[in-house]
């Protein structure tokens, strides 16, 4: 018998629908948004805390220690995956990777932005293997330092890698296979190492890494950012140590110049800029979440496709965990003559999901273009409004992952006491029921948070539509709300779909 998690109750569904209706009315009939005045709170400016923070971010040992811890866990995952029990719920490789890290990562972005990238074990191992230095600037001859070819210098590779990772995760089922989990982890280290050894700086982090780019784009909605304390200092800076590095510190791994930095997308929070800046002018600061998605981030064609892809894939994750998915696949496989693991059928389903979301968005952009009669070219409009996908994907991603995190990570202490699952047996039905009932927080609290996240996502999406719309379809500085209807339809449709998914029972992963 397969167990399912209960879906969001009708009450919360109605609350969210009510909010959607109110939000749409407000968007249609409220005055045009005023230009955002971003108020930020630099941690460096807070007495006592500021000094502490400055010392903390400039301290190499702290970051290095955290990297050691993460690499330690990573090596444990590989060892347990290859040598431990194949029972997924008893092996730390699958439990730690998929139940805790993969589910929890998206929440770390919500609070800490791209902090994960700073301690990423794939990058740390690649760095140590290729540069042969723990943290100091390495000899440039350790790498071929080839410039990334133009056709690769975009986020298309990361999008393809993300689709491939989703295929492995949900199609092949590496989430319930410790051995495959370890093998894929090793593959990522090999790819990161190869990229670092061949290309300039950290091309893997910037262009290829599916996790890094997901973290990066979601970080546009994070409430923190690493930025200059005083922009004038950066404007008058002649050395650009943040970009070039100095004798001790590596340059920015993703080619960012702090004085011109407007979005978190490619910042890996590595701290090189804070350590190399001769003026101590770089610091963490709080900001209103989503400010980038609303107006700071510049629209790019490849990035907009990544965001739309992210939206499609998060929804697809939800669909595959519905009880009806297997029936669909089975019926489809019968029609096509597919057998066995039904991977061809699954692949068609995955690509169809991306194609449907992309097609709906593309059509609605064309409708927007027609309605508004804007002179903007199609690609520009497509990229401008693509930011609406971020809050919709992010909020559903978190709401969905909460189920995994809160309901499925209950027995995690057991795998820490026996990481390889030596002499363990599969979970009994009694244990499954016990885990089902023993959650980290109460079910009502879980539902409340999920509903809150859905409302948060829709609200930010409305704001994105209003602010991004202002720049393209404002008439006499007044927002013609009706002309935003196609984009509103997109946000309403996606949110309703996500809400429907959340209200269905969801199959327990392990």
């Amino acid at each position, binding site marked *: 018998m397969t167990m399912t998690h209960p879906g969001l109750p009708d009450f919360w569904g109605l609350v969210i629908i009510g909010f959607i209706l109110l939000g749409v009315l407000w968007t249609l009939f409220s005055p045009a948004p005023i230009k955002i005045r971003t108020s930020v709170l630099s941690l460096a400016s807070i007495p006592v805390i500021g000094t502490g923070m400055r010392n903390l971010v400039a301290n190499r040992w702290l970051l290095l220690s955290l990297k050691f811890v993460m690499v330690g866990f990573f090596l444990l995952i590989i060892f347990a995956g290859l040598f431990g029990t194949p029972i997924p719920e008893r092996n730390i490789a699958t439990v730690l990777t998929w139940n805790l890290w993969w589910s929890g990562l998206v929440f770390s972005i919500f609070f800490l932005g791209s902090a994960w990238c700073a301690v990423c074990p794939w990058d740390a191992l690649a760095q140590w293997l290729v540069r042969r230095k723990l943290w100091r600037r390495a000899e440039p001859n350790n790498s071929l330092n080839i410039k990334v070819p133009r056709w690769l210098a975009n986020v298309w590779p990361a999008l393809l890698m993300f689709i491939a990772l989703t295929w492995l995760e949900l199609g092949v089922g590496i989430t319930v296979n410790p051995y495959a989990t370890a093998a894929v982890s090793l593959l990522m280290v090999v790819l990161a190492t190869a990229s670092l050894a061949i290309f300039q700086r950290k091309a893997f982090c910037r262009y290829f890494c599916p996790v890094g780019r997901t973290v990066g784009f979601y970080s546009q909605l994070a409430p923190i950012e690493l930025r200059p304390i005083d922009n004038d200092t950066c404007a008058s800076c002649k050395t650009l140590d943040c970009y070039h590095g100095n004798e001790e510190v590596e340059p920015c791994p993703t080619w960012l110049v702090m004085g011109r930095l407007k979005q978190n997308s490619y910042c890996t929070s590595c701290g090189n800029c804070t350590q190399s800046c001769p003026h101590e002018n770089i610091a963490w600061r709080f900001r209103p979440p989503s400010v980038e998605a609303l107006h700071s981030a510049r629209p790019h064609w490849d990035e907009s496709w990544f965001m739309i892809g992210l939206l499609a894939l998060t929804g697809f994750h939800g669909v595959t965990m519905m*009880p009806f998915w297997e029936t669909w696949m089975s019926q489809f496989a*019968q029609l096509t003559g597919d*057998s066995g693991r039904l991977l061809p059928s699954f692949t068609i389903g995955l690509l169809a999901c991306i194609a449907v979301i992309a097609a709906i968005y593309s059509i609605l952009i064309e409708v927007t273009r027609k309605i508004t009669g804007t002179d903007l070219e199609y690609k520009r409009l497509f990229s401008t409004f693509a930011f609406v996908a971020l809050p919709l994907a992010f909020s559903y991603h978190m709401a969905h992952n909460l189920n995994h995190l809160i309901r499925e990570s209950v027995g995690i202490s057991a795998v820490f006491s026996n990481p390889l699952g030596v002499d363990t*047996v599969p979970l009994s*039905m009694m244990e499954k029921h016990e885990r089902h009932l023993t959650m980290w927080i109460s079910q009502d609290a879980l539902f409340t948070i999920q509903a809150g996240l859905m409302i948060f996502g829709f609200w930010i999406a409305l704001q994105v539509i209003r602010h991004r719309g202002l720049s393209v379809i404002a008439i006499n500085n007044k927002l013609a709300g009706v002309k935003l209807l196609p984009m509103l339809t997109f946000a309403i449709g996606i949110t309703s779909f996500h809400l429907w998914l959340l209200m269905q029972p969801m199959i327990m992963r392990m």
Partner: protein
Amino acid sequence: MNRSGYRLQALGFRLKQSLHAFRFSYGLRPAACIFLLLLVETANAHHVLGRPAYSLNEDSNTPPSMQVETQIGDYFVTYMIFPAFPKAGERGRVNLYATRIDNGKAYSGEVTFKVRDDVYFGNDNSETLGSQLPDDSVFRQGFEFSSNGEYIITAEFTEAGEPYIIDFPLRIGPPSSIGPIGIAVGSIVIILVGVNLVQRKRLLTSKIRNAHEETP
């Protein structure tokens, strides 16, 4: 409908098998596919097709079993391996259960079980384990292996003149864990050594060039 039979390799990352193991016998019928995808049916969920699941029978004092549910042609096939992690010199058993997808009727003919080494090259000779008639609709085949290794169990049956061939891997003893580590370490060493050699050549070339430039 002219079908050349079904062959299925059900489990694991074995691309070499899949190259010849699947035979698609139907063409895609887009309208019917779309129609079916639009149908939202509530169904009793099982394990995701084709993936191994480990389970414990709490009603008896038996070791855990591994179970795979899969689909081939007109049949849903479930096979279970007892124990879940068989070892060399220990007796084990494969249970196979096949039901028609359309009416749920269990297959009641004869199933032949064969075994062969799961190797990429060379030995493709199979040995027949036995032919079994159903016992309460379940086909039970015992096995005992003298040495650890990777094997392929093949279950074959014929229905309405169409042969059904189901391959599934069976591992006896612990998995070979050196493989992924060896490949990863080997790849990294090749990359690093390759980069080192190229860089040495670059340095040498630049030294020679500099020497030529400095020569009056």
